């Protein structure tokens, strides 16, 4: 690739190119070794039975793991839980972010400071967030069950919101939306502020109602950024593991399912197949979404 002239000198372009390769090489080597290789290895593992002892090599069993998955009720239920969790936590976080962005579009004293405060759930460490919510949802002394059941009487007491079958998923969805709405807020606020105010002025003069202004100006202007925020959050929520796992063991999404199969049952080959299905389902969703909704 590098041609040396007779005197051994290189041209300036060649030197630049060489330096370019030299500077990017460490990044590329690391990514190839610690991301690309594991991803390819994961594909291989999903077709094998992985023995417990690392000294023995995996045994090729073809599509067995995938066939087992398709016939397993636990797998389909985990897939459904993943879709429900992802859809509602993503929608709630996006709507929450939109609401906050519209509120903060208005000038008020202390706006900059308040904006920093709104980002706190997203900035604080996950472990702290998970445990403060577990404390607040604690069935004996938690403040949420106290207010919800003793004060407001919304439901009969004695329900552990995080371990009850029917409420665990919704509690996790709510906490996740609470933690990640600041992301949507950050993405949207800049775009909201960029909508020219004369558009609203003009609409007002033309007699458009508040709702019409919101629908025809705000939403129309924010359509693409909203769709992008939704897609990004969808991707991340679909793969979510720690946020769910640290709150409760009752919500089994595909990542949680893969984790327990791998590290509680030690079936690494089966777990590799689950994570492959997770990945393919996500890619499938992204392609359909981009083609049909974003219309790129």
């Amino acid at each position, binding site marked *: 690739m590098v041609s040396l002239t007779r005197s051994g000198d290189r041209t300036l372009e060649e030197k630049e190119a060489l330096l370019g390769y030299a500077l990017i090489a460490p990044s590329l080597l690391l990514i190839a070794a610690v991301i690309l290789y594991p991803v390819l290895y994961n594909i291989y593992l999903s077709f094998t039975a992985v023995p417990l002892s690392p000294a023995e090599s995996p045994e090729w069993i073809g599509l067995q793991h995938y066939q087992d998955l398709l016939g397993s009720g636990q797998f389909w239920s985990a897939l459904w839980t993943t879709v429900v969790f992802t859809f509602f936590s993503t929608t709630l976080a996006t709507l929450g972010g939109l609401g906050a962005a519209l509120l903060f579009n208005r000038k008020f004293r202390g706006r900059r400071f308040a904006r920093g405060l709104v980002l706190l759930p997203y900035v604080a460490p996950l472990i702290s967030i998970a445990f403060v919510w577990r404390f607040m949802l604690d069935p004996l*002394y938690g403040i949420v069950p106290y207010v919800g059941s003793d004060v407001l009487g919304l439901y009969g007491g004695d329900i552990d919101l995080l371990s009850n079958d029917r409420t665990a998923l919704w509690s996790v969805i709510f906490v996740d939306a609470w933690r990640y709405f600041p992301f949507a807020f950050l993405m949207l606020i800049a775009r909201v502020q960029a909508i020219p105010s004369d558009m609203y002025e003009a609409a007002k003069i033309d007699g458009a109602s508040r709702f019409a202004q919101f629908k025809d100006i705000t939403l129309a202007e924010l359509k693409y950024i909203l769709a992008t925020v939704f897609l990004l959050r969808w991707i991340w929520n679909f793969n979510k593991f720690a946020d769910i796992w640290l709150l409760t063991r009752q919500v089994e999404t595909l990542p949680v399912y893969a984790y327990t199969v791998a590290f509680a049952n030690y079936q690494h080959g089966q777990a590799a197949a689950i994570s492959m299905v997770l990945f393919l389902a996500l890619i499938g969703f992204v392609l359909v979404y981009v083609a049909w909704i974003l219309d790129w």
Partner: protein
Amino acid sequence: MSTKSTYRHTVDSFKNALGLGNQTIETSLYERLIFYIALGLSLFVTLFPFYYMTVASLSPESSLYSLPPTLIPDELTLTHYRTVFGPETFPFLTYFKNSFIVATVTAGASVLVATFGAYSFARLDYKGRGIFSRGVLMVYMFSGILLVVPMFQVIVWLGFVDSLWSLFITYLVQTLPVSLYMLGNYFRSIPEEIEEAAIMDGYSRLEVIFKITLPLSAPAIVAVFFFTFMIAWNEYLFASIFLESQGVYTLPIGIEALASGFHQVWGEIMAASLLTSIPLIVMFMYLEKYMVEGLTFGAVEG
């Protein structure tokens, strides 16, 4: 745009130019009331858990385990903090130290490797650059859960199980794409003429990088450092499988072990949670401006 609004716009412009503009927002008292209620509610929902964490960490056992829950404590106590810092119950300081070492080393290495890589993407011209830089972004599609099984095998093979090296290598590579992206964007925003002028003056490319580009990029480098620090500080998935003994636990693993090992230790858990949050919140307050870009790009598995 309608003629009416053009007319209105023109009139307003003249008014503004003459200093007659009506700058205050014309809203009724009713509207303002609704606005402040909505704002107050949003801030309440956002901030209440943090307030409650603080109060619980400072409340005596008697008020933690009684109903109704204490919102404004009658008496404050540092008992929980003493337990957290004392060596008897659980080695919080060891966890803190481990997390700090992993996060600092990861962030330092990530900045170092990514600075060179990002400069190469931003300024140097060579075959394959476009594919490389787009490929690095594509890597971002691979989630932690997809990597966790094969990475476990790799870490076992390398003999890094139960050592902080396993986390260092994993976090370094997982944060590289974000670092490359953020630094690359920043380098591209520096006017190329400055560097060209230095080359005319006889600087070599490496001298340009060290003497001109890096000093100009200090804000971005600091932001990337703290951003990767934050990702390493938060990580749970890989740490939960690579680490086995208490001596190497990081904060997320250690606090989880405390919660599952004991009953009714909410005061201690809240104190530990608050102490874990402080480094990130302090950094964020100082660096908010720089971190917003990184946050919108999203953490690894944000």
